[in-house]
């Protein structure tokens, strides 16, 4: 860690290193600040209600008897139907927690895969010079331009021939191999935002690429890594289509697949159970999001300022 603090310090513009931090300056204007801060809070809360509405509505619906969900609109609750939760939890072959465990396995595998493989690829694209770099980068972008519906069948055939259908391999292995171009590109942009001087300084110290990558770049791109981890969690947690296709045994089903199996478009669906379990399955994601943000703020902003 000392290396990069020093390196960052070398990048500080002359005269800035000893400058006052904005936070301290704000003290002199506390009164004016608190007024505008109050306005800010009010505006944020009002808009927050608009953003919160779907969750509140889902919460309310999860507490309504099944046949009232569609006959009543609005957020007023007349009865509390907690049985939606107990019934929903046990409505399928296994308790709902089983599906959450399956999802968690895939999620953690995917996060580990994306963090390692995408950051490696991104470092190569952003910092290293090699033949056909631009061509390879263009190919990488092209891989996200085809809709999944036309590649799923060939993909299925591949994994089926390998005997990997109904395992988590088709869902995790691609992440270990950096097939999520979104995150590679994201990290490329972040690495390119880091001052080159950091690498240069380390090179002069005699660091190789592996060390520059692990000791300097990775710690400094914490916001991008946190973003990747959070998004991978959420998107994998919600990814219905590929999990539906590749998992055939109900014991292997995941949260989104399980949630859909409360639904029947031609007859009664267990809406109450579905909303209740949707709320339950939102909890881990929401918690990850709430606490994962802590890592969004670690980066050059803090390292450079201290």
């Amino acid at each position, binding site marked *: 860690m000392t290396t990069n603090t020093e390196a960052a310090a070398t990048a500080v513009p002359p*005269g800035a290193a000893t400058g006052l931090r904005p936070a301290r300056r704000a003290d002199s204007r506390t009164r004016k600040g608190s007024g505008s801060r109050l306005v800010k809070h009010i505006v944020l809360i009002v808009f927050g209600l608009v953003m919160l509405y779907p969750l509140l509505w889902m919460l309310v619906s999860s507490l309504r008897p099944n046949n009232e969900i569609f006959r009543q609109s609005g957020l007023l609750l007349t009865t509390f139907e907690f049985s939606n939760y107990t019934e929903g939890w046990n409505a399928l072959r296994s308790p709902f927690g089983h599906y959450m465990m399956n999802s968690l396995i895939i999620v953690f595998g995917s996060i580990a895969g994306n963090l390692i493989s995408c950051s490696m690829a991104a470092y190569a694209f952003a910092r290293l010079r090699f033949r056909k770099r631009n061509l390879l980068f263009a*190919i990488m972008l092209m891989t996200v331009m085809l809709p999944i519906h036309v590649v*799923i069948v060939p993909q299925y055939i591949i994994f089926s021939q390998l005997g990997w259908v109904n395992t988590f391999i088709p869902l995790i292995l691609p992440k270990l191999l950096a097939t999520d171009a979104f995150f590679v590109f994201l990290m490329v942009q972040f690495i390119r935002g880091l001052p080159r001087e950091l690498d240069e300084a380390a090179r002069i110290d005699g660091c190789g690429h592996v060390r520059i990558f692990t000791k300097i770049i990775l710690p400094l791109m914490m916001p991008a890594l946190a973003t990747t981890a959070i998004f991978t969690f959420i998107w994998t947690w919600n990814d219905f289509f590929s999990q539906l296709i590749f998992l055939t045994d109900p014991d292997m089903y995941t949260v989104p697949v399980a949630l859909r199996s409360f639904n029947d478009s031609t007859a009664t669906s267990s809406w109450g159970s579905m909303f209740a379990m949707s709320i339950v399955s939102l909890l881990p994601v929401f918690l990850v999001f709430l606490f994962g943000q802590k890592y969004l703020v670690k980066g050059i*902003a803090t390292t450079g300022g201290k």
Partner: protein
Amino acid sequence: MSVLSELSSLKRSKSTVKRKMTRADKQEERAGFLFLSPWIVGLVAITIGPMAASLYLSFTDYNMLQPPEWVGLENFTRMLDDARLLNSLKVTFLFVFISVPLQLLAALVLALVLDRGLRGMNLYRSIYYLPSLLGGSVAIAVLWRQIFGTEGLINQVLGFFGIQGQGWISDPSTALGTLMILNIWTFGAPMIIFLAGLRQIPVMYYEAASMDGASKLRQLWTITIPLLTPIIFFNLVLQIIGAFQSFTQAFVVSGGTGGPADSTMFYTLYLYQKGFGNFDMGYASAMAWLLLVIIAIFTLINFMASKFWVFYDD
């Protein structure tokens, strides 16, 4: 301004970073491929195969249940006089060019507001991200109907002011608009990326600017926005790519029909209907490759234009 000049002095042009030895170059190239190796393996083993297969299938008649039959360019010529395909392109273009800029703007503004300095910021961010968490779930279908339906929330509010509403979601002239609102409303992902980008801007720049007496607004224009351009660019490129492939929202809200009267028939939804609904996977593959070409063109334009407005530190 001195801040600006300092900034530009930080940005070294490539020519000043001298490459001394070809041996170092070779080493770098080796390292490059080493770091890239998982991606290359993934590309060859997992990605390229299915892509090539779909390209091949676009020249065949393939119903998924029987082996494909070579038909040459027939799928592509059929596309020329498919009026619904043309309509789906129109719907998709409208969606991309209206909702992406608005969504990004919302994301950027919120990211700037929620960046720092307020109590409870974590909670605010989480709440503003909530709609994105629910994005494509079945619950959204039901919810959207309860908001934009004939007797939905919007009309109840309008009714309070004595205005007679309409069925926003079921009227062909407004249905697409409700999907655009849905898309803008789920601005959480680009917002988080902007937030992460803001975190990477060294505090010292602001400190230097404050010492020079630059106002907050001026700091925004001379420091924040320029240094955020790589991230803005990233969001722009990927949101456009994503919006061209928009599927889930229209699928869920219209119950898979793309209705009313094809007004929310996104290109990818039509492709899906052709492939999985009509067992015409050959045609769907051809459509997918046309989409790839369209997206590639826009991405290329984006990259070329980026030379004029995106600033990198390297």
